[in-house]
């Protein structure tokens, strides 16, 4: 649970939800807004922590168990923090037919992580996604970061490694 007092002595990791407050003000009492609230919370914090879920529960009056249920139902929501760059690797039909598994292999080889994991340096997280809708450019991946979304099409093992290395050098 979130410790509310500012001079907390209990040793908990006090979480600051001031950024989320305006969102709650707008949506907390509007019925049917839970998914929107969770999306905004994830936009701000990168993932949904148990603290955030409890905070939303307090503000909306929806039980934490139910919020957890919704958060785990939809593939968009994450309960763990992610890296600076989120690799969304498309596993749609066209990508599958054109070798998405091979691309995944290359990413895993290069970064030493598998689907859903984050690199030790916290730079990359790999997420396989259902379809990015760029089927003519298959295989495709989208890399999300604070700088925006970048889509990479017609991937090969080499081009995906090159793209990842470029980011890595930028971050070094």
């Amino acid at each position, binding site marked *: 649970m979130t410790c509310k007092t500012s001079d907390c002595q209990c040793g908990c990791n006090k979480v600051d939800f001031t950024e989320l407050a305006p969102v709650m003000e707008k949506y907390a009492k509007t019925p*049917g807004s839970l998914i*929107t609230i969770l999306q905004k919370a994830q936009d701000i914090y990168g993932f949904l922590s148990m603290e955030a879920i409890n905070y939303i529960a307090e503000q909306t009056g929806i039980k934490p168990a139910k919020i957890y249920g919704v958060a785990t139902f939809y593939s968009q929501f994450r309960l763990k923090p992610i890296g600076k760059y989120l690799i969304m690797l498309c596993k749609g039909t066209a990508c599958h037919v054109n070798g998405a598994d091979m691309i995944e292999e290359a990413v895993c080889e290069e970064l030493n992580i598998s689907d859903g994991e984050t690199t030790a340096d916290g730079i990359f997280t790999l997420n396989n996604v*259902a379809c990015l809708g760029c*089927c*003519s*450019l298959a295989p495709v991946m989208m890399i999300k970061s604070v700088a925006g979304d970048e889509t990479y*099409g017609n991937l090969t093992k080499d081009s995906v490694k090159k793209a990842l290395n470029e980011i890595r050098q930028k971050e070094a």
Partner: protein
Amino acid sequence: MKVVVGQGSCGVATGAKKTAAEFEKQIKEKGLNIVVDKTGCIGTCYLEPIVDVYDDNGNLTRYVKVQPEIVADIVEKHLVGGQVAKEHEISDVDKTFIGKQKRIVLRNCGLINPENIEEYITIGGYEATKKVVTSMTQDDVINEIKVSGLRGRGGAGFPTWFKWNAAKSNPGKEKYMVCNADEGDPGAFMDRSVLEGDPHSLIEGMTIGGFAMGATEGVIYVRAEYPLAIHRLEIAMAQAREKGFLGKNLFGTDFSFDLRIKAGAGAFVCGEETALIASLEGERGMPRLKPPFPAQKGFWQKPTNINNVETFANVPWIIANGGEAFGSLGTDKSKGTKVFALAGKIKKGGLVEVPMGLPLKDVIFGIGDGIKKDKAFKAVQMGGPSGGCIPASLIDTPVDYENITKTGAIVGSGGMIVMDETTCMVDMARYFLDFTRKESCGKCNYCRVGTKRMLEILERITSGEGKDGDIELLEELAQKIKDGSMCGLGQTAPNPVLTTIKYFRNEYEDHIYKKKCTAHSCKPLLTFTISDACKGCTLCSKRCPVGAIKGEVKQKHVIDQNVCIKCGKCEETCKFGAIIRD
């Protein structure tokens, strides 16, 4: 003069933003008075980035595959010199990709700037809405749609007028018009293209539908994976409100209608109406029993109508051109046109809009130009995870609801994934079951557990562990899942397995009894050997992660089959094509 750069998601993915920036930079450097504008996706994805240059008389020159490097050439020759830069212009052959189509849904995609309402108005935009709210009754509109024969383009193919009429007939002042823009079928992207390229058509379609059923509020449920679509839709809605095309008292009448966007959170099952409604209400997207139908009790228990993007995009055209004009296209029971997303092992992938009833062959070979690298065409997958694989022998099948359903596939939302001889059909079935297993909401036992069991069997078969009786077990399970599931997801989930067993039973048998994958795609069933083409360069033996390759320099190498893990790294590494995959 005006330069327009196509900037749909696929255009951007191929570097259209960089191309546009390069044009802007060079135009500025040369001090030219030329505007660089943007447009949506024209559908010829294989030619992106696409740049259109309009001269002062509105004549169009289209340049394709315009990477930043060749911008200078076009600027120099065309923008400065006034001569078409022929070498970068679209070829006559490529022109036929669009020339052979009949575009209603995609009529504006790639032609107008989706972020500028004026361009939409110039080509007659919002005239249909005006006509409806100022001069037609609710029944007039429903009747016009009935005459057109328009059926839902999301998958089920239910007559649109019937749904609107049902929602209209149910009592209550508060009613909702919902757009399903949660294009969840992997392999379909026509809705994204309309959202990104022509958002006002959707707004108009929803307003007209809202008028017909008596709704004053509409909700667009868009997938969160389409950030650009949401962005453009927000711009379009704001501009429409400013012009008085959305909001209170449209065109000075009593009719008020407004829209809002709700971003989906990623759940394929939300394509099902009642699941989508649950999701709109902030719940887990789980379907419920029908009746009551959404037209009776939908969003917040009020009469609700749900159509998908493509369906709505047809509506303004039907109102403007008349239901009969629409009905004159297509076949007896499948009227109008349908957009297909052509992808997979196809030479020219993209969005193809054709009248219903055109044979598959004309779409795949006539427009799509056949198979990549001229390999043999094996099958086309239609309808995504709910559909099936249609084999090469049925290539003359007319593409309409009835004929495609007869093959065991469905028209669905219009994904057409083309497969060649290197695609393993058992693996395709496994792929789709893996998808539906993950996306099953878990409410019905047969769907939740049955898809998992089917997947396990398919995984066994593709890894060489298949056994006698597996095919029959799959068929039995498939039937039970169909019978024991409440919603469309479960009822159709076994289709990819059933159609591949029906048309490619021999491939299943090869996997199970001969332990062979004839498409050479299932790795555990492959054998890698080295042919006489080997020059003994040693690269493969260095690359092999398990040291399975032995041999002296300049001597033919040998793979120890007992050690080989079939990773295929040797094949990637070999420069002489000496590694044989069998």
